[in-house]
């Protein structure tokens, strides 16, 4: 049990730290076009050349031949650790040009291949992950904050507050959210910088998602409200704020934590969907959704399998969050029994 918990926590930490340090882990600028290498397949890492085995992997430079890309095997380019490369901001604060790994130009190391503009797919998956996961997390926080507050109000005060708020949740729950999001995005102004689009997008996703957590929280507050210790506190003249803070919120927090781990992957999927349809984050910024949008073209889908890399990233992230949700839930059950 304990081992599994630590395993899950380690996976979550590794995932987020990698994305947080995307600029460092990624060998290239995500918007940097290499117009000589469009749709290049993933670079092969070699450990063996004619003369023998090497501990340090190396790559060969790609050249375009009549049948597509070929490796120019005359010069091996070893993969270096901590080379200098394109400028980026570490954690968004410190300017640096150091990357985790890379090769000397003119060779390139594109672990997941390149896209139509010769941009490194691996670097874009990492930078795109920042956008997509951040969108998921921020939207979750917004949804839980709004849902939590409204749920507590509805559950604690009951009567018309409850009825009107719950009618609101019913309305939001029956909305076909994808079409609603498409509609809302279409109303937003066109001339938006990618950063603004990102914030608007997360707000919209988050604000639409408040209904489900609100109903859950309301249910918990309703049952907690009639417990003896709450009634006692009320009887001793405790203020509403005191009761909410010391007697009701602790019960609600557990539910909100589990909800958070369930909602993040859902909202990542929402961001991916919107960007896939061209309504989310725009070029040249990467997000997992807009990276996948080129696969809407049949010829790309059947010819360049490596462009499916963001799908792998979405799956890995969703599974990690699902495991986390599972762990959190079992820990909560464990602590309450």
């Amino acid at each position, binding site marked *: 049990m304990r081992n599994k918990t630590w395993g899950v926590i380690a996976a979550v930490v590794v995932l987020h730290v990698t994305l947080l340090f995307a600029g460092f882990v990624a060998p290239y600028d995500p918007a940097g076009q290499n117009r000589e290498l469009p749709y290049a397949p993933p670079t092969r890492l070699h450990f063996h050349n004619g003369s023998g085995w090497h501990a340090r992997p190396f790559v060969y430079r790609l050249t375009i031949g009549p049948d597509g890309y070929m490796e120019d095997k005359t010069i091996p380019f070893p993969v270096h650790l901590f080379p200098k490369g394109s400028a980026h901001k570490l954690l968004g604060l410190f300017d640096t040009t150091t990357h985790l790994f890379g090769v000397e130009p003119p060779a390139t190391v594109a672990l997941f291949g390149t896209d139509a503009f010769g941009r490194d797919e691996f670097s874009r998956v990492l930078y795109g992950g920042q956008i997509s996961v951040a969108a998921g997390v921020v939207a979750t926080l917004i949804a839980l904050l709004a849902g939590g507050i409204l749920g507590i109000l509805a559950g604690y005060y009951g009567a018309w507050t409850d009825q009107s708020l719950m009618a609101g949740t019913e309305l939001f729950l029956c909305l076909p959210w994808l079409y609603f999001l498409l509609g809302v995005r279409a109303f937003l102004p066109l001339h938006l910088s990618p950063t603004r689009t990102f914030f608007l997008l997360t707000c919209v996703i988050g604000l639409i998602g408040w209904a489900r957590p609100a109903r859950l929280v309301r249910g918990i507050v309703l049952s907690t409200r009639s417990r003896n210790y709450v009634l006692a506190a009320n009887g001793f003249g405790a203020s509403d704020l005191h009761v909410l803070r010391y007697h009701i919120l602790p019960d609600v927090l557990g539910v909100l934590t589990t909800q958070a781990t369930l909602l993040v992957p859902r909202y990542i999927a929402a961001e991916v969907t919107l960007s896939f349809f061209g309504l989310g984050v725009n070029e040249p910024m990467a997000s997992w959704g807009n990276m996948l949008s080129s696969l809407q073209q049949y*010829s*790309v889908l059947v010819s360049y399998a490596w462009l499916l890399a963001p799908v792998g990233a979405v799956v890995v992230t969703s599974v990690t969050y699902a495991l986390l949700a599972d762990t959190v839930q079992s820990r909560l059950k464990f602590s309450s029994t």
Partner: protein
Amino acid sequence: MKVITRLALLVCLLAGVCHATGPLPEKPNPGEELFRAEQVSGHYGGQLTIGGRAEPKTFNPVIATDAVSREVIGRLVADLIEINRASQQTEPALAKSWKTSSDGRVFTLQLRKGIRFSDGHGFDADDVLFSFAVHLNEKVDSPQRDLLIIDGKPIAVTKIDQYTVRFVLPRPYAAAERLFDGIAMLPKHLLEKPFREGKFVETWSLNTAPAAVAGLGPFRLKQYVPGDRVVLERNPYYWKADSRNQRLPYLDELTFLFVGTEDAQVMRFEAGATHMISRLSSENYNLLSRERSRSGAQLADLGPSLEYNFLLFNQNDLGTKKLDAIARKQRWFGDLKFRQAVSAAIDREAIVRLVYQTRGTALWGNVPPGNKLWINTNIPHPPKSLDSARQLLKSAGFSWNSAGQLLDSSGARVEFSIISSSSNTQRMKMATLLQDDLSHLGMQVHIVPLEFRALVDRVFQSFDYEAAIMGLGGGDADPNPEMNVWTSQGTSHLWHLNEAQPATAWEREIDGLMQQQMVTLDYARRKQLYDRVQQLIAEQLPFIFLATPNVLAAADARVANFHPAILDPYTLWNADELYIRTPIENAGVR
């Protein structure tokens, strides 16, 4: 064993007879003046299916404006004089010959005798007069009407006798016989009544019974299944015959399947459900060519098309429209040096390589190299040069801040958005390349994908855009259809629509040159005038030309006489000559 072989043969024969679903072609009448296509040979039978991207909107040839309707209707009707898509020259069609007066104003056309509409009714001069009356009618508002009105006066049509018609133009008009291509001849006996009653626009809609639609084209309407297909069958009275005097067309049926997108067209084609694709993107062309060894498909790369893709800056008079932000940026857009700098920074070779996979050509002028008769080959092709772009910007008063961002003379950051059609992946890719190219000059460019109609609305109506990537051209190789783009009054004078007066001296000069070439009959002199127009456009850059794609088409291995052309309709222009090879013939070909 012998018995079995004979039985099998009999079954095959019977199957063949039962399979011939279309009406059999009529034997030529003695007095019938058929068009003899001497080069064409083939055999009867077979159905050809083609995947279309959308449904037609009407079967009425006079009011159809969209490409899909016109592609279907084009097989149902015929014109007096046609432009041969392969040679790009005019050739006799329903008119067997014509004479032009020495001043180029009077055309006398001799019609073919004894030919019939697809319902068996004869065709003569009265049908021609009626057809032109309909096309010129203001209420009908045909898209071809503008072409038939020269200097505000319509072309006058008179009947000399049952098979002779005279056309008088208000003034000499260059390449006037090309005007007749696209003016469909209509059956007076079917359409006169609705026309007199003012109901012409509603006739021959999608709900019309197929038998009520008749034309002079190689096929006639058999069936329309909404949302699924249009089936055409052989016109048994068609007026063309092949080298062996067999009446064309060879095909029993021609079916248009509505499949939605180009990708769906390709998938259906790969699956063998359709026989032909008219216009392919280079990606799909490469995909099909990789499978060629297995499928044996016929692929045609015809070289540069007549389409030109360009970057357009909004220089419209915004007047009372509340578009202050755009009006501010128009100071840059109106500056020739700014446009020249943008043009110099664009890597056109990369567009050809990355967007068209080398199946395209970079452009510096409005006439693509596919138009060999009219291109001005003296227009310079300067390669990408960031240095000259920077110098141009500097001389125009722009400067750079410490972060390398471009600032205008008032210190404002140079930032603008480019709109483009979200469904056109090739133009979206161009936008991404341009964004990167211009970022090297310190310009910040945002790409805004828009649904096509929203884009058209912004460019033509509301003027609420800063820059756009669009494409034009592809109709005819002649300069006359381009009048509406380059003359200041033109309806597609996109960078500055609705000019009361030519806004600049060079626009005034282009107006004069375009008018003059239209009334000049001598090709060499016209070419000289149009060369000057091209030179002015290349110098003044109202559009920044990017690239033109090649015309790419594909057909199943079984389709014979497949000769695609760079003029629209790329593959079906010779639908009457197409036929399906038998498996034995096909084995010989492969």
